[in-house]
Structure formats: C-alpha cells, structure tokens
C-alpha cells in the first residue's frame, strides 16, 4: 500500500539471529528480490532472538512465550504483519502468536510480564514465512516468481530441504495453500525451484531432519552430524548440484556441517547449500558478491559456473 515504494504488500521483516550473523546474503536477497515482486520488507527494529524454539521451549515455555510476544508487539506497534525467513523463527513467532490469540489465560500471563516494559500483546497481526509469501498468489505466487526471472538457472539439478518446523507438527499448521499442508511429502518448494528454470530433484528420505534442530547440535554434535551425513549421502546419490533450504539454521548445518563432517568422518561432499532467497536473487540477476555467497563454508563456485 505504500505510496513511495509502489509495493502492494508491506511487512515487518523479522531477521532472527543466524541469517544476519552467518548468511547476510539471505537478508539482502530477501529484501531486494521480494521488492521486485511487489513485497516491501521493512526492518523490525529492536527485535531479539525469536527465541530458539528447541533451546528455550525445552527449558521454560513461559520465557519462550514472553520473548516471542515482545517481538510480536514490536510489529503490532508498526501495524504490520511479520515476514520472516527462518523455520525456527516461524515456529516461535507464528506459533506463539497463534497460541496467545486463542488462549486467554496464556495471553493474560504474558501481558503480566510485558507490563513491566510497558507493552501489551493485542493479537492484531499475522505472521508469514517469506517462502509462503512467494508460493501464495494472494501475495506473489509461482507465476510471478517465474516472470521475475532474468537469469534462469537452467540445467542445475537442485534438491530441496524443507526443514521440520515449517511443516510440523501437522495439526498446528494452518497455511492458506492446501499444498503447503502436505507434511510428509510436500512438493511446493520444488514448484518454486522449477519456476527459476532449475530442475528439482527428488532424493531418498527427503523429509528427514537436517540434524541440528531441537538442541541436538548443541547437545551431541557427532550424533547430529551423523544425521546430516545420511542426508548428504542420499543427495550425492542423485547427483544434485546444490541443495536449497528456507531456514538459515538448516543451512548452517548442511554448509558448515560439511566441514565438520570432513574433519570428524573424513568424507568430503562439497555440495553448495543456498537459501531459496539466494537462489531467487541469482535468478533475478543479482551478483554472487551482492548475495554474500563468498561467506558460505562450502564454495558455491562450481554451481555458479553452471548457472551464470
């Protein structure tokens, strides 16, 4: 609705922790690529950690509610719905928003805490993942994504990692698009990959966890890498040129994880891992430097040579 930007939709952009600290390209790519698609992402100033659902949720749910609520209130004050780019953040921010809207006792408890910083959760906004905005034609839709491509990623075989929190638990997810409610074998991200001109590839046990979530990475690194390694074996089998994700935490696990796997298990994959926003940026003609792809643990060069 904003006059100056000409954008049809405007959201408070919640960054979370990992994207700005490890993969700043995700942030840049999201803002620039989405703008071309009529979506303006306005920084959500003063936001904290979402907080991480596994780490906080398993220790004290009340802290999880209160911190997420604070982030929500910041957006309520901006009178804007939230857009975010991370599955972990989606679980925290979307789910807490949903719970507080529907449970008065919980809301009263949280507001008791928020009162100390002169805030009140009112339940006036909604929360969306940027991937959802891209897939849902009420905001963008696959066709518009396809139309925005100037540098099709033709010939690239790209595998998709959905990540757990975006689809699970099934009974707590309420996407408008029916296809997004498919928990066990979704294919909507493959549609988005195909829209960029690339070839999406199926691989064995696609819906397996990246290995990091739920505090596993922090608690038992080797075990967590074991899970990641299994996924990488399956990805190697189908000769994927790159893996794409919609969660910087999954991305960290697959990208930096490969270096750790090399150290600990002595296996090398060199599989480039890119957030979908980064892929979209490339397909819309952004340069690898603009996208900060040089900051990735695993070099994206071989993949870039194929598509640029």
């Amino acid at each position, binding site marked *: 609705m904003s006059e100056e930007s000409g954008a049809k939709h405007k959201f408070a952009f919640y960054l979370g922790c990992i994207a700005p600290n490890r993969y700043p390209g995700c942030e840049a790519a999201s803002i620039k690529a989405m703008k071309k698609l009529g979506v303006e992402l306005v920084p959500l100033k003063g936001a904290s950690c979402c907080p991480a659902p596994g780490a906080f949720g398993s220790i004290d749910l009340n802290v999880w509610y209160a911190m997420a609520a604070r982030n929500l209130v910041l957006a309520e004050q901006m009178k804007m719905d939230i857009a975010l780019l991370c599955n972990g953040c989606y679980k925290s921010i979307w789910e807490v928003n949903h719970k507080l809207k529907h449970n008065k006792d919980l809301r009263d408890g949280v507001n008791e805490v928020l009162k100390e910083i002169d805030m009140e959760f009112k339940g006036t906004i909604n929360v969306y993942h940027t991937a959802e905005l891209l897939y849902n034609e009420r905001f963008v839709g696959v066709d518009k994504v396809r139309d925005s491509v100037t540098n099709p990623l033709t010939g690239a075989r790209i595998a998709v990692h959905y990540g757990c929190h975006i689809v699970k638990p*099934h*009974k707590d997810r309420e996407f408008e698009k029916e296809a997004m409610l498919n928990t*066990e*074998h979704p294919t909507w991200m493959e549609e988005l990959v195909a829209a960029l001109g690339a070839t999406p590839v199926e691989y*064995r*046990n696609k*819906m397996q966890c990246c290995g990091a979530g739920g505090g596993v990475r922090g608690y038992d690194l080797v075990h967590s890498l074991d899970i990641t390694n299994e996924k990488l074996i399956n990805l190697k*089998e189908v000769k994927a040129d790159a893996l794409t994700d919609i969660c910087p935490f999954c991305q960290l696990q697959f990208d930096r994880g490969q270096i750790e796997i090399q150290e600990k298990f002595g296996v090398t994959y060199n599989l480039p891992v890119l957030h979908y926003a980064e892929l979209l940026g490339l397909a819309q003609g952004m340069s690898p430097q603009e996208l900060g792809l040089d900051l990735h643990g695993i070099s994206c060069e071989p993949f870039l040579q194929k598509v640029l």
Partner: protein
Amino acid sequence: MMAEKKKATTKKTASKKPDTKKAAPMKQEVKKQAPAPAAKPKAAPAAEKAAAPAKAVSTTQQGDARVGVFICHCGTNIAGSMDIEAVQEASKRIPNVAFVDNYKYMCSMPGQTVIQKAVHDNKLTAVVVAACTPRLHEPTFRTATKDAGLNPFRFEMANIRDQNSWVHMHDRVGSTEKAIDAIKIAVAKAALLQDLHPKSVPVEKAAMVVGAGVAGMQAALDLAAAGIKTYLIEKDMSIGGRMSQLDKTFPTLDCSQCILTPKMVDVGRSENIELMTWSEVHEVEGYIGNFDVTIRKKARGVMTPKEAEAKGIVGGGCNGCGDCDGVCPVIKPNEFEVGMKPRKAIYINHPQVVPLIYTIDFDSCVKCGLCVTACGPEKRAIDLEMKDEFVKVKVDTVILALGYEIFPIEKKEEWGYKRYENVISSLEFERLICASGPTGGHLVRPSDGKTPMKIGFVLCAGSRDNTGTGKPYCSRFCCMYSLKHAHQVIEKIPGCIPYLFYMDIRSFGKMYEEFYYRIQDEGAKFIRGRVANIIEDPKTKNLHVMTDDTLLDRPIDMEVDMVVLAAAIQPSDDTNRTRKLFGVSCSMDGWLLEAHPKLNPCGTTTAGVFLAGVCQGPKDIPDTVASAEGAASAASIPIHMGEVELEPYFAQCIEEKCAGWGMCVNLCPYSALALVEKDGRTVMQVTEAKCKGCGTCGGFCPGGAIWMQHFTTPQICAQIDAFLLGGEQ
C-alpha cells in the same frame, strides 16, 4: 373420507365406554384453561382395545390430580452422585404429589411392581419416574403405568441420570438440587396429563433394502423368505459389494466367490425380490408402514429383456453375450480390479455380475454407435439416448446396508501410496492374489512384474490414527485379513516371507486366535511398531520400512520388495446423502447411528428404518451377516403385525377458534395440514397419520387454535411455572 370414518368410530367409543361419562365434568374444567378436544378418546379400532382397561381415576385433572413420584438409584449411577433422601423429602412437598418412593432399579420387575402397587393403594392419577432417560425406558414405564390400570400416557419421566448425575458426577449438592427441579417440572406436567390413544395404521406388505453387498443381499433373502415383497436397491451395476472382490475369507479360507455367487444367483432368482441395480434412492416421504420412496434408475444405456419387451422388441434385450464390448473403442481402468485391468465404456466389471446386463459409462462413452451395430437388429438392447427414470414404490420398512469404502490411503503421505509403485493397498492385494484377478492370481511387483520374496504388511494403516489425517477407530477386519494375506503368500510363493508391522493383533472372533497362531507357525514375522515412513530405493524400487521394534526397543530399517497397506475403511460415498433422506443420524466418524449401541444395534431413531452391515460400523463378514439377519427380523415385525401404532402426539384443531387463514398449512414440514369447509366455515384439518407432533403449527397459530396433544400450552406453562416459581408447599 378417512377423517369422517374416524369420527364415527370416535363417537361410538365415547358412547360405549362407561368411564367417559365420569370424564364429562373434567372435560368442562379443562376447557376453561384451554378448550381441549384431547379429552375425547379418539381411537382407531385397535386403540380402542388398548384404552379399555383404563380406570375411572384415569381422567382426573389438576384439581384432584394425585401424582406418584418414583426415584430410581440406577444402581450407583444416580444414587452415587446425589442425595436420594433429600430428593425424596423435597418431592413430598411438591403440589399434587400423593406418593413418593425410591428403589435401586425402578425398571426391574420389583421396581415396576412398586409403581403398580402404589397406583392402586393411593389412587394415583399419574406416574412420574425420575431415572435414566426416556430414550431407554419410556416404553418400559408406559407399560408399567398401563399395567397399573392408568392410561399409558399418564406417565412422565424426569431425566436425572443422562442429563444430571452423569454430567455433574462431582457436584453432589448441585445435582441433588437439579434433580428436585426436574421432578417439580415433571410433576407439573403429570398433573395435567390426559388420556391419549395411539393411532394404528395399516401397513404395506413390502420392504426395501438399500445397498446389495453381502449385508443387503442377506437381509433381502431373509425378508423374501418370510414372504415379504422386497425392493433391493444397488447403486452399482451388480450386487455383491466388496465381498465379491475378495479372494479367500478368514479364518476358514473358503473362496469368497464360491460362497457369495450362489447367494447372488438366489437374489437374482427370488420371486419376492425386485432387484434394481444402477439405481439409487432419490426421495423419501411418509413414515413407518407407509414410506413413499422414489428410486432413480440411472440411465444404463442397455435394456433388459423385460424392458425391451415393454418397448415392443420381442425376444430382444441384453443377453450378456458381450458382442458390444469387443467393438467399443473407449478404454478405461476397471474399478472392480482397482484400476489394474482395462474395461470398455460398455462393460460388465467382472464375469459374475448379477444381473448379467451390460452397462454404459456415459461419462466416457463417445456415442460412436459401434456397439449398437454389434448388438444387432434382433436384440436391439442398446439405447444411447436412454435417460434416468424415476420409479415410485410404497414400502413399510427400510434397511440401509450401504457398506464402506477404502480410506484414500495416499493421504498418509509418509507411506508413499501412489508415489511408490510397489506400495499397494490390501484391496489391490486381494485382486492380485485372486485367480480371476488381473494377473491370474500371480502376485507380482507392479514396478517390474517380478515375484516379491519379502513383503511388508502395514497394519492399522490410517486406522487408530489420532493425527487428524487418518481415522481414530479400529477398522476391525484388517488384522485378520492381513494374517490371511500372510498365509496366502507363504502358500503361493515358496520362500517368500511376510513381515507384519502391527500395533496389536486383534483376533477376537471365533477361531480367530487359533488362526493367528497358525500363521505364526507357518513362518510369518511379526514386528510390533507403527511404521514411521517408507523410503523407496530409486534404483531397485525396493522399499525401506522405517519403524521401531517396540519389543526389542530398537529402530528398524527393513528392506522389502513390496508393501501392502491394510488401509482403514470409511462410510461409502453416498452414505451421507442417503441417510439424510431417511432422517437417520450418524456418529462423529460418519457411521450410521443405531438406536442403542447394545440393546438396539439394528434400529435407528427413525421408526421403520434399520441398519445392516458395515454402514453401522466396521464388521467382518460373519458379523455383517448376523447384523443383516437381525435387521431383517426387526424390519419384518411391523409387517407381520399388519399395522403400526403412531404416537398420539398430533396437533388438533380447536375449530371454534380457527379463523381459517391457513398460515399453518404452509408451515407444516410434513404436509399434514389442510383447509376444509365445515358447517359453512373454512377450518384447518389435521391428517393425524402425517403429523409428527413437531409443534411448528402449534407454536405459531396466532389465535391459539392448535392444540398439541401431550405438549399442550397449559402443560408447558405449568412446567415453566414449576421451575421459575418453585412450586413447593
């Protein structure tokens, strides 16, 4: 005509019966509150008999009403949650109460005797039983009231169990108070109750069975054997239902076709069964004894010999030769073979169909006319322009035997049905292992036609599933048929090992547990754990079954050649529409609701409509047949009685007050009202047999000219007053 005849009877009754004389003063008094035509016993001949034992006391009204209150403990169901003593004491203070007692089980023989004795000893005029629910025991206590010498409608129930003690189990004070209120309300009405006489109407000697699976067939055969004309309505082209798709049947392993086809032939031959396949119920009117059902005979495109003859084609009509099938250019997957074999647009879906008449699938027919030519000028069986036909039949009772269908198991995406070629459903397995199936009984992998040597069977596939995707209930026969499947592969494929992934093995029937042990001994492997997901090896198309072995407490990744999903079942497609036509309810999961889960499993809350087979809930064949025979027996009772009794809750017109506007006529949902000319005035008249006593007209009439028997305005007002004003002495 009918109304006049009834009037004559009424007069006769009035003059003949001595007690109506005593009723005279009362009639006057009641009229003061509201002119009550109800005091006139209006009875058909049968009801007259019923009214005969009524004693003089039975016509007393409020002024000298003497109500007895009988409080039931229902064991501890009621007594455990409220203070019966307090309820008893409070009841004594309610106006018009002449007697109060309580008993452990009021419905038992001694309990009923308490009521009868009290009525005699205390000259009671009405009975209030505070107990379970009228749904269960209203008929019981009506009979007890009648046996005590009162008109059976001088009974009122206070529901203090279902709507009180069961709900407020932990609130003793509250439930005691609520029970006292309920009794006050019941007494207020009881004091104003009047004698009523049920109306009997003669019935058709015909029944209808909807759905011709093994349940519907059995029910129809039983009814026919009892000499009752039975219309058997089947939406598919053939009778037989799911059972005709099965290979063998547990636990005896007899061939399904061999035990079913003779029955199918019997149905086709029976003189008393009028079979209508490719048909469905379109509209239903009327009530028990007089259902008017409109059947839609879907255009089949092919005439039976009878239909051809009616059109003047002597010696014509379909003889099942199949000449048409050969020339038809359209190829479609055959639903009977779960899509694993082709069929034409003109087809029979398997060789044993009854009736043996071809059918055109007009959705795929291209109307090329080749079949018409092939069928030839003698038979002239095919009519490509055939339209749906509507046939009206009158029946007395109806049995719904709508069966089930397989839950779309692809919804459980984690098992990859329709995504992985070698994951099949149990129904596909039945067809693949069946000698008359698409592979001639050779079980092969769909991906490469090879014989599988390791087969995983996933039990409870979509059943007992609380994720919201599957069904919460147990489908009840999948354990047993999976054991059967395990036996079949061991028998047919030497060296092949079946692995059954299960939660519990439910082998509860006669000789079932023994069958389970037998299959274990034969070498089937059992792994207790729910299958988390199935992963296909893209190269070999083998499948990895991922689960937990909960007995050995370890995760399992089992590679197999093929997976069979023992898919859950759900009510068949058209169940919801059909049940609504008959006013039958369903439970939350869509299965049709029986009148009582234990004591009336075949009945429904619509009088004259019964349930048979799986449409009431999952059942294997033995249970299905038992339920069908039960339903047939229940459905034949009203027919053998020759008449049915209608509850006398119909509306009555108080002609002096009726302005003849007729607004009520349009309001009545059952078309029971009409305007008639009477003594030079226009007044409303009720067709009692059609009136359901819903009260729509009674509540509406601006002149207060409609009197709802047993729910009269004074009665309802007295109930409200009793609640609001207390009504204690």
